[in-house]
């Protein structure tokens, strides 16, 4: 298969997945008890004009298949109606929240991957001895820690010793003199959630890296290279790592769902104003339009990230195109 047709096939699969997500959302919010779509209209805060606008937008007087088509187009345009609580368009609420989430998730994931690679390589190379067992034990321990509990532990630590901010993204009620004081404030709020999320993800990435490197190290060509007298560092750098890195790309992409789950819990504990905290607040307030929109935007982001990983993988390793 040529690279262009491989990319095309991946794009098509992603589109189908997004369609499945939309249908899933459509039926979930209509079939389950309580019928949240009808609930849209029971919102006492709505004016007559808003109700008419909603009726037109969702076409609720039309047959089900037409409602579905309208829903698909609305979803693709990012149109999820009005939030019960904020009485604003769900889309307008979601966009800034998504950016706040990325500010937390991106550095946490990158740091966790780098640390995971470092210790994963070390563990794989020292397989079975004390270094390996202790790295493995620590990684599995971190992997077992409930994210929200680890976050709470940092809050307790901060109350008694660290005295770092334990909630929000910036200090409330102060106006920042310039961009630097703003960034400084932001960073001090970022530290605890960032450390929490990074530690939880680190365990997972280390185990993945170790196992995928061990798989490579048992290959015959590694033994051959060793027999020829290649130095250990050169062997790892030139032969083992590049081959172990490839499966890492797709495994990281598949595990993005876990990253998102961890972020939701971390944001909740630290009151970080991202999509995750928005979901928590929406649950408390029974704000279904927000819940629906947040799930959709998260799911689509994960699908797109997987698409990028697949395209990258196909470029780096031509074998997977077939």
């Amino acid at each position: 298969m040529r690279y262009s047709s491989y990319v095309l096939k991946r794009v098509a699969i992603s589109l189908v997945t997004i369609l499945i997500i939309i249908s899933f959302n459509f039926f979930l919010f209509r079939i389950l008890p309580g019928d949240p779509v009808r609930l849209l209209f029971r919102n006492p805060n709505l004016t007559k004009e808003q109700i008419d606008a909603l009726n037109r937008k969702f076409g609720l007087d039309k047959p089900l298949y037409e409602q579905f088509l309208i829903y698909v187009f609305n979803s693709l345009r990012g149109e999820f109606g009005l939030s019960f609580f904020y009485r604003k368009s769900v889309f307008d609420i979601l966009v800034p929240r998504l950016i706040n989430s990325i500010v937390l998730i991106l550095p946490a994931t990158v740091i966790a991957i780098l640390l995971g690679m470092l210790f994963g390589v070390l563990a794989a190379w020292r397989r079975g001895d004390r270094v390996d067992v202790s790295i493995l034990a620590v990684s599995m321990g971190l992997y077992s820690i409930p994210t929200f509990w680890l976050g709470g532990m940092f809050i307790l630590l901060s109350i008694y010793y660290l005295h770092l901010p334990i909630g929000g993204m910036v200090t409330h009620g102060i106006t920042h003199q310039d961009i630097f004081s703003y960034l400084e404030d932001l960073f001090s709020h970022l530290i605890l959630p960032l450390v929490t999320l990074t530690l939880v993800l680190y365990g997972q990435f280390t185990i993945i890296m170790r196992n995928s490197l061990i798989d490579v190290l048992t290959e015959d060509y590694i033994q051959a290279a060793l027999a020829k007298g290649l130095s250990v560092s050169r062997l790892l750098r030139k032969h083992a790592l590049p081959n172990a890195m490839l499966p890492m790309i797709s495994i990281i992409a598949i595990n993005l769902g876990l990253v998102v789950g961890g972020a939701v819990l971390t944001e909740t504990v630290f009151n970080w104003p991202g999509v995750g905290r928005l979901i928590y607040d929406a649950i408390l307030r029974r704000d279904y339009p927000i819940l629906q929109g947040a799930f959709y935007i998260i799911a689509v982001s994960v699908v797109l990230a997987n698409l990028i990983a697949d395209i990258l993988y196909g470029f780096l390793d031509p074998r997977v195109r077939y």
Partner: protein
Amino acid sequence: MRGVRWLKLKYMAFRDFWSIYRSNKLGVVGLIIIVFFIIMAIFAPYIATHDPNKTNPAKYLLPPSEEHWFGTNEVGQDLFSRNIYGARISLLVGFLAAGVAVFIGVFVGLISGYFGGWIDEVLMRITDFFLVMPALVLMIVIAALLGPSLINVILVIGALSWSGTARIVRSMTLTIKEWPFIEAAKASGAGHFKILFKHIFPNVMPVVYANAALTISNAIFSQAALVFLGVGNVSDISWGSILHYAFSSGALGTGKWWYFVPPGIFILLLIYGFILVGYSLEEILNPRLRHR
């Protein structure tokens, strides 16, 4: 006579397996942890020092003392007793939800791998969808819509945790169905159903066991997370609900550490136990990961 011989064979197989398993230190530690919590759950009424539900407004948020080992919560309930009883829900949800997930996963994996063709294509697209989706977020949305009850939480976790098992079972099935004895079974007239469940299924099981341990640990985590977020049943006594109230009542934010620390340590230990067991089973059963 046949029954006795079967038992003896099973016993010998178990003894062989145990002698390998015993040499895996991490695996033994994991097993001890799990047994510890099972005993705690069964004998909770005898271990608990107080009635876990009895409130006492005069004794709210007391720090640990000789009377209350883990202190009390904001309505004056004894936290030690609540933490002991909490083991029950976590283990129950862990085993039942993982049971649902393994059942679906094995079924989908077997059918998909054995029949192949368009059935495989369709089932694997669905599996990939669930593999890629952020499971926790999906669980939150569905559980929030279904309403809080223990059985809903079990079903939701079970219904969303099978994709990994399905993938593994499918790839095992693809290999096993090419083995000569399957050919022989087909030649002697065995139907699809018999081949799948009598011949392929038993050979897939060892890998499923390793995977099930990890599925259980995920289910325990998911239940605690859902209850913590308030979408599970917060009125059951569980570690997740203790953490939920510690967080939402503001006790955490004001530094009441005795309220927040113990349930988390219990969850962590129990999950760690299952992960260690799952990892050790994988190491034993997957020859590639065995020692070089």
